C-alpha cells in the first residue's frame, strides 16, 4: 500500500481528493451538519463565523450545510447521467463495432447527428421538452453524453473484435453475448474508467450551468448552481454563498478531472498525453 502510494503520488492524491468529497456528500446526514433547509431570519447573509463556518445565505440558511447537500444533488445527478450514457452509448458503440455493417452505419450516423448539437444547447432543448428538474437535468446530460460514449468505445472495440483471441472465441462457438461481456468489456474497462471520470468532471459543470440557468434543481433543493444564481442577486450585500459555491463546483470538477488524468497515466501508459 505504502509502496503503491509512493509510486502513484498523483493518483493517490486524486483518489483521496475525490473520496473526501464523496464521503462528505454520502454521510452528510450523520456528520453533524446543520439542516440545509432551516431558515433563521435574524441570521441572514452573515459572513463566516463560529456558528456558520461559511456564513449564511439570503434566507439565513447555513452555507456549509447547503454546499455539502449540494454535493449530494450534484453527484447523484451526474453519476446517474454518466451511468445512463455509459450504459446506452457504450453498449451501442460496442454493438456497432461488433456487428459492423448497416447496424454500425445507422447507429453511428444517429450518434453523429446528436453530436452535432452544441452540448449545453442540446441539454437545454431536452429540458425544454421534459421540464426543469433534477431528473430532467440528469436525463438531458445522459442524452448529450450518449454519442460521446458510443464514439469513445467503438474505436477500441473495433481493434479488439479483430484480435486473435476474439477470433478464437468465435471459432470454438462462443455466443455473441459471451464475447461482448467476457472479452470486449473487460478489455475496455480502463478506457471506460478514464473517460467516465473525465466526463463526470465536465458533467458537473454542465449540471451547475443548468441549475444556474434555472433549468436543473429547483428551489429549495440545495444545489451548487442554484446557490450561485441566488447568491448573484445579493453579491454586494454578501458575496460568501456565491464564492463558496463556486469553489465547491471547482473542487468537485477539478477532482474528477485530475482523477481521470492520473488513471490514464497509471492504467495505460500508452495513452499518456505527454511522453
Amino acid at each position, binding site marked *: 500500500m505504502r509502496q503503491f502510494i509512493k509510486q502513484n503520488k498523483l493518483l493517490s492524491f486524486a483518489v483521496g481528493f475525490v473520496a473526501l468529497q464523496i464521503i462528505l456528500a454520502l454521510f452528510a446526514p450523520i456528520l453533524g451538519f446543520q439542516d440545509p433547509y432551516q431558515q433563521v431570519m435574524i441570521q441572514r447573509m452573515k459572513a463566516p463565523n463560529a456558528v456558520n463556518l461559511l456564513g449564511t445565505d439570503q434566507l439565513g440558511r447555513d452555507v456549509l450545510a447547503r454546499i455539502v447537500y449540494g454535493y449530494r444533488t450534484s453527484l447523484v445527478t451526474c453519476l446517474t447521467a454518466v451511468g445512463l450514457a455509459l450504459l446506452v452509448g457504450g453498449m451501442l458503440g460496442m454493438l456497432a463495432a461488433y456487428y459492423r455493417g448497416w447496424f454500425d452505419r445507422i447507429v453511428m*450516423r*444517429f450518434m*453523429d*447527428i*446528436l453530436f*452535432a*448539437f*452544441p*452540448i*449545453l*444547447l442540446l441539454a*437545454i*432543448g431536452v*429540458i*425544454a*421538452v*421534459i*421540464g426543469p428538474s433534477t431528473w430532467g437535468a440528469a436525463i438531458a446530460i445522459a442524452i448529450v453524453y450518449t454519442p460521446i460514449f458510443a464514439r469513445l468505445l467503438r474505436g477500441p472495440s473495433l481493434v479488439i473484435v479483430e484480435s486473435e483471441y476474439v477470433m478464437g472465441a468465435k471459432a470454438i462457438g462462443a455466443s455473441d453475448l459471451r464475447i461482448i461481456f467476457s472479452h470486449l468489456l473487460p478489455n475496455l474497462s480502463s478506457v471506460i474508467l478514464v473517460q467516465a471520470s473525465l466526463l463526470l*468532471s465536465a458533467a458537473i*459543470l454542465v449540471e*451547475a*450551468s443548468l441549475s*444556474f*440557468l*434555472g*433549468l436543473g434543481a429547483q428551489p429549495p433543493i440545495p444545489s451548487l448552481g442554484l446557490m*450561485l444564481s441566488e*447568491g*448573484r442577486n445579493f*453579491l*454586494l450585500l454578501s*458575496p460568501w454563498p*456565491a*464564492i463558496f*459555491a*463556486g469553489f465547491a*463546483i*471547482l473542487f468537485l*470538477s*477539478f477532482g474528477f*478531472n*485530475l482523477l481521470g*488524468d492520473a488513471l490514464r497515466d497509471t492504467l495505460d501508459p500508452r495513452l499518456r*498525453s*505527454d*511522453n
Partner: protein
Amino acid sequence: MRTSSRFIVGRLIDLAVVLFGVSIIVFMMIRLIPGDAVAIMLGANTEITPERIAELEARIGLDKPIYVQYFDWIWGAVRGDFGTSIWTGRPVMSEISANLWPTLELTFLSVLFGAGLSIPIGCFMAEARGKGAEVAVRIGAIAGLTIPSFWLGIVAIFLVSKLLPGVSALGYVPFTEDPLGNLQRMILPVIALGLPMLANLSRLVRSAMLDALSQDYIRTARAKGVPQRGLVYKHALRNALIPFITSVGVATGYLLGGAIVVEQVFAIPGLGRLVLGAIAERNYPLVQASILVMTASFVMVNFFVDLLYAYIDPRVSQ
C-alpha cells in the same frame, strides 16, 4: 486532385445528412412535449376553448399531416421564415437577427482570445518542460478547464463593482453606437468565456509541440544550426498547428453553448438569452428556430474547419 474532390463531395453528403437529422430532431421537439403543446402555448391567461385550440393549430399548421408540417417548416427555415412569434406577433427571424450580433461578437472575440493566446503559452510550456514555472502554468491550465465560466464572471463583476465603482461591466451597447463602451463591456465576458478554451488549447499546443519537436526534421534543422527560437516558432509550430485547427472548430461549439450562460451572467441580449426567455414563455417556435440556427452554424463551422484541415494537411483527404 481526384481524391480531394471526392473528399469534398463526401463531406458535403455528410453535412447534408447531419443537417437533415438535426432539423428532424428540432422539428420533433415541440411534438414530444408532454401534454397538449397548443394548450400550453395558449397560456394560463387565456380561456382554453376547442375553437381557440383549433384556430391556433390552423395558424401554425398543426392540422396538416406531419410530413407536410415538416416540409412547410423546413422550407420556411431555408428561406429564413420561421413564422411569427406567438407572443409578440413579430417574425421569429427578426427576433433572432436582433439577438444574433451580440452572440457572434462575444463568440468571435472569445475564440480570438482563447486561440490567440494559447499558441505562445503552449510553446512556452513545451520549451520550458519540467521547470517550476511550466508546472505552475500546467496546473493553472487544469484549473482553467474546470473553473465554471459563470462563476468567474460573477466574481469578476463583484471585483469590478467593488474596486472600480463607476465602470459598467454589465449589459451591451452596439459597436456602431459606442465602440469603446462596447469593447469595455466585452472584456470580462470574453475572459470568462474564453478561459476554458485557452486552457484546453494551450495543453493541446504543448503536446503537439512536444510531438513536433521530437521529429527527425527538427533534429536535422538543429544539426544545421537553426537557433532554438527559430526551431520552435518556425519549424515545429507549423506542424503543430494542424491538430490545433480542428480543436478550434470543436471548441467554438463549446463556446456557443457557454455563451448562453455568460450572456445570462452579464445581461447581454444575445441568442442565449433569447432561447432561455423563449423557454420560460413556452414560445416553442422561437425555441426551435434559435436552436436550429445555433446548431446549424456550429455544424457549418466544423464543416469549414474540416475542409481547411484537409487543405493544410493533404494526407487527410487521401
